[in-house]
């Protein structure tokens, strides 16, 4: 087992009196695909939001890549190399696909706004470099045909793929994907699964994803964490988790006969 890149230590999060997450701990090993599953309202998206600093947990801390953060913020997470996609697509609707993916390179821009505004040679050179990196991702995700298409006019499945492209453009160490396959048909899910697995390998990523389709989860994850009502009820390999009685009860209900 590889050294954990991410350690979630006793995280609790509540909104007023509602406890969204209660004392959850788990580790994510470097290079693995970890799925966080659970029924609606189990606290999955909240967990992802805590990891990249959108929510601040009242208790507990997060260790990412050897550094412990009692209070993670979005900019710290981004600088540390955590990128994510959202359950509700959050692309810039009026911009085209290349422009959307280019925004993922923002953190890596070295020239200042003045140089960019004046279009100095240094800024031009840098833009060309970023553009090349973006083109590699476009080719990797096979979206050449929609390069210049406005994001808002794309079908849902392709918007999801562009969102993944933008996250990859940030050259992250860890990718958080919130329901990357929601609302997709079987074929689109298969394509997306391939892209997630290949990206994990090709870019040496660690991937944490939320997914409802247990078939997909079983196929692509190395490690599954199961949440229910804000508590962790399962943690292990896909095989261990599906044979866990607590998990079966949470998903199927308990038989009363």
């Amino acid at each position: 087992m590889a050294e954990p890149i991410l350690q979630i230590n006793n995280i609790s999060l509540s909104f007023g009196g509602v406890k969204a997450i209660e004392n959850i701990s788990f580790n994510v090993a470097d290079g693995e695909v970890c799925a966080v599953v659970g029924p609606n309202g189990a606290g999955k998206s909240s967990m992802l939001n805590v990891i990249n600093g959108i929510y601040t947990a009242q208790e507990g801390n997060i260790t990412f890549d050897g550094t412990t953060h009692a209070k993670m913020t979005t900019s710290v997470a981004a600088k540390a190399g955590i990128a994510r996609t959202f359950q509700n697509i959050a692309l810039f609707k009026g911009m085209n696909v290349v422009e959307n993916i280019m925004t993922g390179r923002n953190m890596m821009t070295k020239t200042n706004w003045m140089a960019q505004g004046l279009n100095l040679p240094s800024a031009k050179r840098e833009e060309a470099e970023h553009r090349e990196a973006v083109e590699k991702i476009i080719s990797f995700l096979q979206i050449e045909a929609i390069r210049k298409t406005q994001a808002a006019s794309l079908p849902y499945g392709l918007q999801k793929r562009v969102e993944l492209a933008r996250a990859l453009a940030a050259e992250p160490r860890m990718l958080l994907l919130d329901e990357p396959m929601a609302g997709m048909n079987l074929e689109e899910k298969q394509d997306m699964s391939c892209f997630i697995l290949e990206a994990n390998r090709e870019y040496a990523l660690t991937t944490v994803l939320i997914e409802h389709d247990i078939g997909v989860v079983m196929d692509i994850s190395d490690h599954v964490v199961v949440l229910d009502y804000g508590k962790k009820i399962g943690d292990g390999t896909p095989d261990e988790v599906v044979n866990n009685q607590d998990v079966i009860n949470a998903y199927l209900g308990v038989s009363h006969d």
Partner: protein
Amino acid sequence: MDTFPKLLSQQAADNPEKTAIRHKKLGVWQSQSWGELASAAAGLSSGMKSKGVGPGSRVGVIGANLPEMFQAILAAQQLSAVVVPMHPDSTGDALAQTLTQSECEMVIAQDQQQVDAVLEVRGQCPALKTVIYLNGRGMENYEGITKLSDMIQEDVSAPDVSTISGDTPAFIFHTAGTSGTPKGVVLSNAAMIDRARSLTNTENLTIDDEILAFLPMSMAASMLYTYAISLVTGCTLSCPESNETVLIDMQEIGPTVLYAPPFVYKDMVSSAESRIQSAGKLKYSMYHAALASCMKIENKKITTGTNIVDALLYQLHQLLVFAPMKSVNGLSRLRVALAGGDSIAPYVFSFFRSIGINLKHTYGTTETAACITIQEDGDEGHNVGVPVEGVELKIDEGSGELLVKGVGMFDSYYNNPEATASVKTSDGWIRTGDLATYDENNNLMILDNISEVGLMSNGAKFTPKPIEVLVSGSPFIKQCVAIGDGRGEVTAIIVMYEGSLNTWADRMGIRYTGFADLASREEVYTLTKEHLSTVNAELDSALQIKRFVILNRELNIANSEVTRARSLQRDNINNQYSQMIEALYSGAKEYKHTDDNREHNLPIMSTT
């Protein structure tokens, strides 16, 4: 210069710096000159030799039009090997059959999709020794296959190709096989080059021409109009970035020469109609007024000749309406546009003529190197033109079948002497299997494939293709199957174009839930009926369509209803739709059609 390897050496010597081939990589067009192409092919050729490829070896290629593929084809031919191009989507039994029939020893596959397809049937192909791939993505754990770039040997001098003779087989193409099992058609270097030369002469092709290679390599016509023409003229071949980007690439390259089967041209007309239907009122009326006016002027040209007013009007329409449209579609620089492989609807033909594109019919079969006749410039008739240089035609008096003789004919069907003998007559003619005649200006006209000609119960000869071609002349109709063999009347199964029909329905304010629903609507039936009555006016009374049904989905390749070139597979259609066909003759008003376990009521309408 009677072989491809010799032509390559000549281009590399005469035009070393001229761009031979380009491909878009990472969003930028990358060029390779004739000099670079020749040295790449030489390196690959010596690598192939070390893998056992030699004179007469069969080397399969399966993948898209890519510079590496063209290099590999040249490299194999430098070793006097025969190249067997396969369709990039070919899999399973069909692929196994092609590989075993042609006894391929080496296959060069594009990426994981093609490699998986080949490996799946490898066990059935005893001759297959080596599998080479271009792009290794997703295949890190594969064993027993070699990457193309690892096979290239550096710093090798160009191989000696002076001893290769013109009659050395260059390609084995597999015929589409609308009936029976496909056969491997062997075409020699000289046959393809002679044909490319005569096209170069009749169409004045030069080194400055631009060609986009977008048709599957498995078609003889595709290799003739890309590979052979570029080697003969030295012009530039561009490879699309991917299958999905062809239209964008076309716009960026602006090809000057275009060859495509009729369905490609028909798709362009329908997509133009679809876009204009959703444009503003002014644009919509301008477009249709300009089109109607130019079609009329084109017509007058043949009958009475044009006057100055017409000429001015024509130029004005071209400038205001069609120039921007052509620019958007990448047709601005198009000088030579050829359609072949099937008949083209008169409407589609006059559409292209009206927007100022010199679209011309060609005719040929795989056995005759894809092109034996070509229309003369300005000829507006519905014929396939006159024979190309070095080709002689004859129509058999008894059967009406077209026979051909001359340069550029196939060598044989690979390993199938009986089939070869059945097509080649003892006095050197080749049977085309097509029924043909001459029009009043001595231009050839193809009526139909002999095997598809039937007899109606009233004694009339039933030729479905000319009917279907007329019917598919509407921008709203995609496919048509005419039925009449052994019957007293002609009926038709019709498939609509989804894109243009949807925008038409939106414009007309018709509410519908989906294409299947829309296709069965009364308004759509009325639209179709109007079109069919104009078609019937042009047909002999025995061949007029009496009733029709609109199918709510496309006839597709997956169900073996059409071939990859979109030709109908009539036997399969007759089997699969036998009940629907019976309903067309039973006088029923409706047919309950089950598709994907869902029932649809398809109305049956009379045309009168």
